[in-house]
């Protein structure tokens, strides 16, 4: 068990290393200039800025310096676009917010998607199946940048305790979490349905049925766990994606989360910020994948023994 975890962590580190390396060079190929501002910089100013951030050195030295700072001093550098703020501060301020939003919406997605998937599978090709799937699918077919404003207008305005946007009240997490959850819920429903159909056709379920075990018993005791395997596999990457890919929702609901930095950092050519995010995201994704794998081992006795 420990060996699996260690080797997976090691693999994650290799992946992250490749990822950062690739991003490091790719972002420098982008057009534009990280220091472009409303007024043209003089050559001297530009050179001074580059000196300040170490961009005047040859590329391979810059690259070596980046790793040196990260590994030896734990320093991700200072953001280019948000002057005077450290990348590590920006991430540590925004991550808990994204985490709170992400966990809630993941929970909502699970409580919506999994039951719908089970219902759909149990009533395969009947109207219940169709209804459940249409509900589940609605989430991905209506894009978030339409869903968000609709929620704002139809719930937040009439309800006095719910704000349209912002991040000051505890209730502010509700609407964005609901908006975000649909996309994941749809996939979960689909995967649960597939998994369930698969299990229900297995011989041991058929024989249980033949022996007269009740439907409810079959599902809860025998079918549910293995049927959820595909859904759980998906949860890891979905979790990472929901935390970082929430730019649209953050913009609509004015949430100071992490997702916006992925877009703003790249648009502003904020090298250090983007690299810091990629590094963080890579590790997060590795851990999320590992967690979902561990959950699988826990769920599937066959895997646990091997």
């Amino acid at each position, binding site marked *: 068990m420990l060996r699996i975890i260690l080797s997976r962590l090691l693999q994650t580190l290799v992946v992250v290393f490749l990822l950062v390396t690739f991003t490091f060079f790719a972002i420098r190929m*982008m*057009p*534009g*200039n*990280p220091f*472009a*501002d*409303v*007024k*043209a*910089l*003089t050559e*001297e*100013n530009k*050179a*001074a*800025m580059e000196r*300040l951030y170490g961009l005047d050195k040859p590329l391979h030295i810059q690259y070596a310096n980046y790793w040196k700072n990260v590994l030896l001093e734990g320093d991700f550098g*200072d953001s280019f*676009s*948000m*002057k*005077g*703020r450290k990348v590590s*501060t*920006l991430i540590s*301020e*925004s991550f808990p917010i994204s985490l709170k939003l992400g*966990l*809630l919406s993941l*929970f909502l997605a699970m409580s919506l998607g999994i039951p719908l998937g089970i219902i759909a599978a149990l009533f395969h090709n009947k109207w219940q199946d169709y209804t459940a799937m249409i509900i589940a699918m609605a989430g991905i077919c209506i894009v978030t940048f339409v869903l968000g*404003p609709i929620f*704002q*207008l139809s719930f*937040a*305005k009439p309800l*006095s*305790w*719910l*704000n*349209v*946007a*912002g*991040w*000051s*009240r*505890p*209730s502010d*997490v*509700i609407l964005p979490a609901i908006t975000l959850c649909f996309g994941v819920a749809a996939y979960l429903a689909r995967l649960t349905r597939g998994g369930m159909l698969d299990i229900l056709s297995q011989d041991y379920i058929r024989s249980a049925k033949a022996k007269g075990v009740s439907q409810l018993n079959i599902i809860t005791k025998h079918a549910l766990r293995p049927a959820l395997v595909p859904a759980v596999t998906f949860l890891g990457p979905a979790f990472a994606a929901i935390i970082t890919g929430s730019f649209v929702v953050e*913009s*609509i*609901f*004015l949430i*100071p989360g992490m997702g*916006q930095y992925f877009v703003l950092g*790249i*648009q*502003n*050519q904020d090298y250090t910020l983007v690299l810091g995010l990629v590094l963080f995201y890579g590790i997060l994704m590795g851990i999320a994948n590992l967690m979902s794998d561990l959950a699988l081992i826990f769920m599937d006795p066959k895997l646990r023994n091997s």
Partner: protein
Amino acid sequence: MIRIIPLLATTALAFVSCERRSDIEIANEENILIIGNSNEPKGLDPHLVSGVLESNIIRALFEGLVVDHPSKDSHSVDGVAFKDQIKHSDDFTEWTFHLNPEAKWSDGVAVTAHDFVFSYKRLLSPDPNWPAKYAEMLYFLKNGEAYHRSKLGHILCGNDPDFPLVWETLREANFEGDSKIKPKKFKGKIFSELNEQDLEKFSPYLTGKDTPDFDELNSTGSDFESLSTANKKVLFNSIGIDKLNRKQLLLLKDNLSLIKWSDNITTEVKQLVITRILSHHDAGKPKLWDKAEVGVSAINDSTLKLKLRGPTPYLLEVAKHYTWYPVPKHIILKHGEINTAYSSPWTKPKNIVSNGPFKLKSWRTNHLLEVERNPHYWDAEEVKLDGIRYLPIRNYYTETRMFGDEQLHLTYTVPSELIPMAKEKYAAELRQESYIGTRFLRVNTLNSPFDNPKVRRAFALAIDQKSICEEILQGGQAPASGIVPPFGDYKPPGLIKFDPEKAKALLQESGYESTSSFPDIDLLTTNSDSGLREAEALQAMWQKHLGIKVRIQQREWSTYLQNQYDFNYDIVVAGWIGDYLDPTTFLELWVTDGGNNNTAWSSKTFEDLLRKAEKSSDITTRMTILSEAEETIMNDIPVLPIYWYTTNYLIRPEVKNWNPLLLNNHPFKFIEIDKN
């Protein structure tokens, strides 16, 4: 799963114990103003920021010599200086300010005239590491420009009684260098094969038989002694006397004709100039603040004296801009050097000290910036609000919805899509006011087809400005007949008006046979929605009235800017908001190589007119000259005006004293929340 439980608990709690009062009700009780401020501020150092949204915060935190009147444009009230005690010479070149001894920084230390001197010295700092973007605002001070741009010749000789007569003529000498003839630009070209335009650039510096060799120039590097005379001339003149190094100066001393001087200067004077600069080099290039005699001085702690480059009757208008605010000398020096630009350590929330009606309370990135009452403010009793919350709302649709849900007192703007709704639903809250700003198109005058003024004019006249204002923007914007919006005493020449027939005729005259032989043109714009609609409308208008198909290029902000600086564009949608109430805030943009010019357009006639206006102390004459200057631009038309801005915003009825102001710089000390 386990981690989710506390989260659920808090959420459930939120449902039960939720606050049923709106944000505004709570804020009204706390006497705090909540405003939408469009984006995360780039910083709080008044010397380093350049945006409108930052100025909204800085105006609450800091205070200049005088303060905007809460309801009248071009009027001022007491600031750090007593308004009534301001004295100026008859020609408006020397001004004396008496500072309020009660004026204090938020840590209780007194604000003195020395803070102002320090502040202006800091903004004008010539250090290339100093990234101030708005130092030109202090060029009004005598020698401010010379100091900021390190004009050695000017500083070492210009202020000197030894040079009383010759300096005026000496100014024509090539002190600054001519970037147009940099050898690098002609890499790989042969001098004898240059076109007329390029040859023109060299003509002031070369005589008859001189033929420089660019290959040699580019390959020799620092070894300039072996160059031919012609090559040396090109090299030296591209650098300029001010920036020559020691070795080059010594060579110049022996061979004065290597650089361009004016004709009637004696050899003796030339030698003297070179000697002075050499001795400056020998002294290890000491900082020149004292020698430069920049026109700001502290007579004592409470008296500030300003000497200006020319008559400036409107100085108080200029001095209300945040670049003229004092910064706390004692705090800046505690956390760094005078111009430690990097991250301005003194502006960190735990360090910052300010002299305005408010001080910084908290600043969470991309979340909220809050200011609170400054108890040490000299007029603290008159400050009505207990605090202001600035929300960085980038999404203006969300902002308008938040206003509707009682979350904001004041919005930054109303997106044009929502204006029809706002007119109906928020008839009492919607404000549409004049704003001193112009939307325009810059064109790249270096490349075909826009190197041809007729093409530029054709494109300008084919813009149906009225339709853009009324059908797309709907915010009361007015078609722009020129680059300077109308206000006060200024009479715009009014040369541009939608005229498709004339546009077509001009295009035919321009020499482009048919529209199909016309070069490809890209219209550069940012990736915002409002910019896109405008660009699409322009595209359709040019297609309809000129038959020319333009491609729209949407780029991220940093690329959008950099493409302009690199002249990697044909035509670009842009805008400018005035910094102070005078036409020069729009006209100074278009001087040669100005940081905001970006069109490569330059005109000596135009700049001469600007300099002439600088010297005129009569307001009417001055405005006439400026109007003439605008006419020069509009005749040659490197910028195509589209419309004059207005402000469109929503404001709650309980906010008092927020009156229409052309610059939209509302002094926060007078703003009040009327709870009844």
